[in-house]
């Protein structure tokens, strides 16, 4: 069997007495759009934290592109090609939308000195500014370049959050409820964006909106109480009795 782009093996994580993740194992092949669903408090965000490097697991290993990344710091994982978005918007609220994304683009520069450059004015670097504007347009924020991020509407901040993650040009993108708190119109735009993205990068998508999940996902995993209770094709997961019982709150009698 060939190794997936992302290989999670026996990952556990607890907070005090609470077992937030219990021996989670999952393989995501390159190019897949993989949805992770589960009730509130199931441990979805916690799993994203372990994968992105915001936290390290108590046990288990995480392999990415054939390399063990379990103990790598977050910035190194980003350089390897893992990017994430946050469930609660996490952008630079005092900077303009353009400057936000420009930072993400700049972070990728590996030319001489990288970001250890002390003289030339960065907002005159056309390559960075233009690419940042391109990502803003990509997520539907064209025309908002000069707006201060903190003054953007909630939905727009969610879009900016996506642009930040995209501008790191990841191979694997971890999206934690990208549509949370969005209106139907904005949600639709983001679903379309994810649909387009899904053809280019590997996606692990945490989402509560079931319509979006079944429309976007190649495969779905269900997390309940820190345990992965099933992984499979959307049609199989939909009818899986344990899923219906645990997640959809239905009695299958």
């Amino acid at each position: 069997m060939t190794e997936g782009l992302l290989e999670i093996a026996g990952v556990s994580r607890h907070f005090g007495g609470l077992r937030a993740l219990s021996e989670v194992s999952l393989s995501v092949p390159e190019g897949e759009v993989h949805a992770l669903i589960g009730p509130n408090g199931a441990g979805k965000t916690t799993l994203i934290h372990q994968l992105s490097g915001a936290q390290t697991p108590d046990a288990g290993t995480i392999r990415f592109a054939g390399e063990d990344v379990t103990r790598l710091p977050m910035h190194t994982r980003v350089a390897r090609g893992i990017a994430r978005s946050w469930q609660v918007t996490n952008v630079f609220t005092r900077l303009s939308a353009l400057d936000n994304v420009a930072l993400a683009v700049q972070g990728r520069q590996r030319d001489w000195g990288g970001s250890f450059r002390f003289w030339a004015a960065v907002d005159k670097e056309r390559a960075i500014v233009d690419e940042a504007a391109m990502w803003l347009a990509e997520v539907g924020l064209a025309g908002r370049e000069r707006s201060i991020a903190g003054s953007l509407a909630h939905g727009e901040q969610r879009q900016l959050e996506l642009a930040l993650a995209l501008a790191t040009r990841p191979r694997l993108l971890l999206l934690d409820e990208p549509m949370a708190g969005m209106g139907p119109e904005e949600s639709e735009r983001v679903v379309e964006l994810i649909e387009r993205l899904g053809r280019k990068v590997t996606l692990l998508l945490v989402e509560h909106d079931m319509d979006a999940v079944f429309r976007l996902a190649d495969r779905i995993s269900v997390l309940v109480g820190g345990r992965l209770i099933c992984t499979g094709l959307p049609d199989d997961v939909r009818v899986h009795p344990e899923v219906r019982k645990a997640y959809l709150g239905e009695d299958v009698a």
Partner: protein
Amino acid sequence: MAGVGMKSALYRQSARRRGLAVAALVALAALPLLLQAIGQDFYVSFAARLLIFALAATGLNFIVGFGGMVAFGHAAFFGAGAYTVAILAQHGVTSAFVAWPAAAGLAALLALGIGAVSLRTRGVYFIMITLAFAQMIYYLFISLKTWGGDDGLSLPARSGFGPLHLGDDAVFYWVVLACLAAVLFLLDRIAHARFGRVLQAIRENESRMEALGYPVAAYQLACFVIGGTLAGLAGALIANHGLLASPNLLHWTQSGTLLVMVIVGGVGALYGGFAGALTLLLLEEALAAVTGHWHVALGLLLLGVVFYAPRGVAAYLHGLVTRRQNDD
């Protein structure tokens, strides 16, 4: 259209800023001549001391205000710079072109070591550990009799500076002013360069920067080293000024004074260190002349600053200037 208008407004603003800076520089350069003309030569030396503290405080402000790291051990770098010059002079090395870069370089190395360890901590712990390192160095120096112990190490004369005679207070003042001006110009460039952009963003949201692929600690360490280097240069100057490398320069109260200058002047403002040194040293000088209880009076005045100009004197003055601009 709007874009074009905005651009030219920005351009006008930065042109005006540059104009103000040049005017201030010319005025400061003319100061010794003015003081000599009115027979107050003594104040030339005082003005040089003020600019040296402005330089040290500017270095600290780069760490605290720009890098977002509240460090309480800046005296270590200030004192290290002073002792480097004095020790080199003791061994016959008196050229400023050797001694001053050596002072700055040693302070940089020291900052690299202290920063690398201290930056593993955050917040109050960072304050405490930088303080502890600085105090260790203080006790080291007062216990070393070869380097003067409690008395400090005196210099036979000011450093040699090519054909310029630094023994002349006015010439020394001009050299100090040139150092300060060059440093402020450099820091302004850094603020708008890739590195400065990264530091500002780290100050706003550290974890988000990690998630964009930035090794945050490396940038913070570089910032810490730059600030420490500037303090080392200021230390070289202060040793030349009083012809003495005193252990007082290394004492924690010195770190405290510099920190107060930064807070009073304006945390994170380019001219914050300058404004703070100016305010504090002028007040100290004026109050000491009229009352023996000048410490109390100074404390009260500082409270006033905190209440009326909570973002610092530099920001307060900047506000006055821009309000004037909007009026006309």
